[in-house]
Each structure stands twice: as structure tokens, then as C-alpha cells.
């Protein structure tokens, strides 16, 4: 039945309120970053971004971190989750709990816990981004686990893996040629969220004295808040574009049953 106009207006206005509530910070940032002095407007802050050498260094560090985290995700986290899902279904729940843990541990606590190891590492080994990325790999677990788990439940991965086995595929071929391509959407979501998280993280890198993107922005912000906000907005837009690349969840499973979907 046709909805009355009143109902439609009511519904769309709710959506509008929710959206604008979320868009508020972005608009405020845009406003702030284009202010020059008390009442004039200009893009000087945006132009100034490129004249900050420390900032470029921070960006490079953060991108290095993101690359390492991606590698850890693809070659450690994804195979582990898939393998538990397929072969050790009883460990699914413990794994889910373990993966949610970092969410409950505030950054400062994490730092207290690992700082000794880090000190030891920085003395005896190196202070490369690799060490920080190990902490990040832990931080991304709560988000990536859900994406992967949802993707694994959406298709009958078990049957696909068995089909590949009967056709002669080894375990690693089954994993990399069949299972991972099948849950590509979930892996992509996990990747994008991880990148967003690594590029946005401040507390831990600051506490462990790493000069990442956000740390540098904050330093600049202490000198010139306008530039800091402009850079933040730029990074936000970059991450937004990343998020747009993220595939949507599709429901493969149901197609065969939809006999008369019309």
C-alpha cells in the first residue's frame, strides 16, 4: 500500500537527523580549517600541509605500518580464522573471545603490558615499525575477525573446500585458490578497516614514542591547530574513499531457494 506523505517525511527526517549528527564533526573541521584569523576564509592551512617535512615522515611511517599489518592479516590472521572455522569448529567461540579482547584493553594498559618487551626490543634489536605493527595486528583483531567470520558463514565454505579436495587440491591450494577468493569481500572489509585503524591510531604510537602520522598531526596542532585539522580532514577523506572501495556483503547462499522471487 502507498505510504502517506506524512509517514514518508517522518522517516526521511529521522535519517537526515542521524546522518547530520554523524556529519557534524566533518563540517566543523572543514569550517575550522578554512578560517584565517577571526572572520576571513582561505586555504592557507591546506597549502601548508605540503611544507611540513615531519608530516611526510609520519605519513611514510604510517604507510609502512599499514603494509606490515596487511601482510600479517593476510598470512597469519586469515589462515588461522579459516582453519579454525573449517577444522576446529569447537574453537570458534574461544577464538572469537580472544579476538575481542583488545577491544576491552585500553591503549594505556596495553602499553604498560608490552612496554617492557618493547624496551628490551629497542635495546637489543631495532626500533623499526615492525615492533609497533605487532601491537596493531592485535588491535585490529576485534574488527577483522567479525568481517572474516561473517564472510565464512555467508557461503558454504565447508562444501567448497571439500569439492576442491575431491578434485585433488592440497590444503594450501584449497585455502589460497578456493577459500580466500570466495571470502574476498570479507577479507577486503578487514583490510580496509585495518588500514583505517592504523592511519587513525594515536594513543599507542604516541606513548611508545613512534612518530606516526597522527602523532605528527598532533605536534603540528600544538603549533598551528588549523593545519592539523586540515591534515586530519584530508586523511579522513582518504579513509572514506578507502571505505567506498569496500565490497558489500552479498548473500550467495539463498539463491537456489528463491524459486519464485519474482
Amino acid at each position, binding site marked *: 500500500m502507498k505510504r502517506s506523505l506524512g509517514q514518508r517525511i517522518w522517516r526521511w527526517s529521522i535519517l537526515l537527523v542521524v546522518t547530520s549528527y554523524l556529519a557534524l564533526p566533518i563540517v566543523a573541521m572543514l569550517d575550522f580549517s578554512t578560517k584565517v584569523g577571526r572572520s576571513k576564509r582561505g586555504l592557507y592551512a591546506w597549502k601548508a600541509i605540503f611544507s611540513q617535512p615531519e608530516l611526510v615522515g609520519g605519513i611514510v611511517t604510517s604507510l609502512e605500518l599499514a603494509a606490515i599489518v596487511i601482510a600479517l592479516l593476510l598470512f597469519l590472521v586469515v589462515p588461522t580464522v579459516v582453519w579454525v572455522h573449517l577444522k576446529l569448529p569447537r574453537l570458534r567461540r574461544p577464538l572469537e573471545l580472544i579476538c575481542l579482547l583488545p577491544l576491552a584493553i585500553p591503549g594505556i594498559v596495553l602499553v604498560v603490558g608490552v612496554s617492557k618487551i618493547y624496551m628490551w626490543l629497542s635495546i637489543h634489536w631495532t626500533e623499526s615499525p615492525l615492533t609497533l605493527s605487532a601491537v596493531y595486528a592485535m588491535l585490529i583483531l576485534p574488527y577483522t575477525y567479525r568481517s572474516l567470520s561473517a564472510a565464512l558463514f555467508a557461503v558454504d565454505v565447508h562444501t567448497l573446500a571439500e569439492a576442491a579436495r575431491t578434485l*585433488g587440491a592440497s590444503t594450501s591450494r584449497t585455502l589460497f585458490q578456493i577459500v580466500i577468493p570466495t571470502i574476498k569481500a570479507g577479507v577486503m572489509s578487514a583490510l580496509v578497516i585495518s588500514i583505517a585503524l592504523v592511519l587513525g591510531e594515536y594513543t599507542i604510537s604516541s606513548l611508545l614514542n613512534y612518530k606516526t602520522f597522527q602523532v605528527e598531526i598532533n605536534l603540528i596542532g600544538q603549533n598551528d591547530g588549523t593545519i592539523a585539522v586540515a591534515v586530519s580532514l584530508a586523511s579522513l577523506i582518504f579513509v572514506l574513499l578507502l571505505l567506498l572501495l569496500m565490497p558489500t556483503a552479498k548473500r550467495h547462499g539463498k*539463491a*537456489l531457494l528463491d524459486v519464485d522471487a519474482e
Partner: protein
Amino acid sequence: MSSVAVQLNDIAKSFGPVKALAGLTLEIKEGELVALLGPSGCGKTTALRALAGLQDLDRGQILVGGKDITFQAANHRGMGMVFQAYSLFPHMSAQENVEYGLKLKAHKVSAEDRRKKSSELLELVGLSTHAGHYPHQMSGGQQQRVALARALAIEPKVLLLDEPLSALDAKVRIQLRDEIRRIQLEVGTTTLFVTHDQEEALGIADRVGVMRDGVLQQIAVPQELYDRPTSAFVAEFVGLTNPIRGTVSGSTVSILGSQIATLPGSVTSGEGTALVRPESIRVEADPSGSAKVVTSSFLGSVCRSIVDLADGTRITAQSASSQASVLRAGTSVRVTLDTPAVFVKSL
């Protein structure tokens, strides 16, 4: 054609307290299509999965072509398997799905040979125009055809079909059933077909094995299984039956005024319940008849009538569809039997 291709020797498997297989022994001849039929939980799927190497066993031995493969890994067995549904790789086209097994072969098959082979197989299953389609672009029936082509591509020692039709529409199901049989006869691959649908099993197989609680109850050619069941379970599971009380003496039973021979395994004396097929019951309109039609449904090629006998027993009879207009609700009818033998179980 008559050498033994597959031998399952006393295989057993328990899942916790549940015995899925309780010592199953089965032989499949070269080129034969055997169907395993049974209700949920009878162990038929476990047996098929054990043969595929996807299920380990507690005991027993599996031989294929005389070679013991009980402990061989699934990816070295060379079995072609078609699953219930959704088993096509979603990121590959129909052709890529069919070629996947060939790409994995130990002695490489050239890209050209693979393409030729996959084209042949897609033509065999009637989908040569769908080579480039992805699974989500195909109907359920088409997907199962591709799955069949994919399983046949590796020239399997045994073709394993695990309820391949159960997720499909009624019409597609019948069509694909006939097609699977045609292709199997053409290719000549030894085949094990697992199903819970008795018509499917009877219609497709050289021999049908009925399973219950992890063991084989009876294995025979379809007509023998249907006409000469050796147990009440088989009689009732394969086809419809009407339980009608009668008195057994020696090897005949007296029911509905007829003396009918009893099948081996039946009760041998006293009262018993004869299991009579609907099509063995002849219902004729007769004003002096003591039975009454309750309702008749016209099912196309046949007509099924529910009839109340004089003693209150309600039976189902099947007759030619032309009878539907005669056997209306309330009609008085005479009921006679037309069957050489029936199975009689104890009351």
C-alpha cells in the same frame, strides 16, 4: 562390466553415541550405478563421504579397483563428487570450474587440452552456451549440471552423487535425474548415488540399497526391491503401503476376500498386517459394494482415492486417471486385490 569396482568391507563410524555406520558391506560393479536410499541419519551420506575420503572410519576397509584406499587422502583418491548444492566455486566461470580439477593433475594437461575437455563436458551436460557464466548467473539445475561436468572432468574412478537433486524444483529434478542416468550410461563411470527420495533411487539406479541405522537392509534391482521387499521397513520406505489386517496360514494371507501369497520374511501364522501397494488395490464402482470413497484426487497420469472399507479401515488406492470422474466422494465401491504377493508384518 561385471568386475567389482568398489568394495566397502564392514565399515563402521560412530559420532559420539550415534552409530552412523554399523558395519556396512557393499560391492559396486564396474560401470554400475548403485543408489543408497534411506531416511535421515541412516548413514548413507557417511558411507559416501568415507568413500570420497572426507570421513575417517573407526573400522573396516575400502577397496577401489582391488586397491586398499582406506587411508588415502581425499585429494589423491580421484573420486568425482557432486554435492547437494552450492558447491561451485563462486569466483570461477562454469568453464573454469570444470577445468579446475584438470589443472591440479600431477602430469600437466595442456591449456588447450583442458579447454577441449571442458567444452566437451559442458556440451555433454547441455550447457555449452554457458561456459562463461558464473555460478550466481545460473539456475540451481544449471549449477548442478556444471558440478557434474566438473566431477567427470578428472575422469574419476568412481562418481559420487550426494543428494544432487534435493535442492531443485520438482520438474527440474525429474529432468536432471534422467539426464544424469543418460550421461552415466554414456560415460560408463561407476557411480554411487545417495538419496532419501525413493522414486529418484528407483528411477535412476541399476541396483538400490536401502539403509537403516548404519547397515544395509536390502540391496536389489528396483523392481525386486519394490515387489519383493524382505522386511517391513523396506516395504514401507520404498513406495506407499496400506496396512491391512489379515490371517496368515502357511505361505498365504487372507485379506479383502482374496488369498495372496506372502513374501519371504513375512509372519508365518496367525494375525498379521499385510502391506499392500495402492496400485494393487482395484476399486470399482458398485452400488452393492460395502466400501465408500472418501475423496479422490486427480494427479495427472493417475488418480488416487481414499476409501473406507466396511470394517472402518481407511485405505489409499491408485487407479487410472480416467477413473477420477467415476470415483467421486460418497460412491459405493467394491475393493479387490490384484497382486501376486505381499509382505505381512506382525501386528
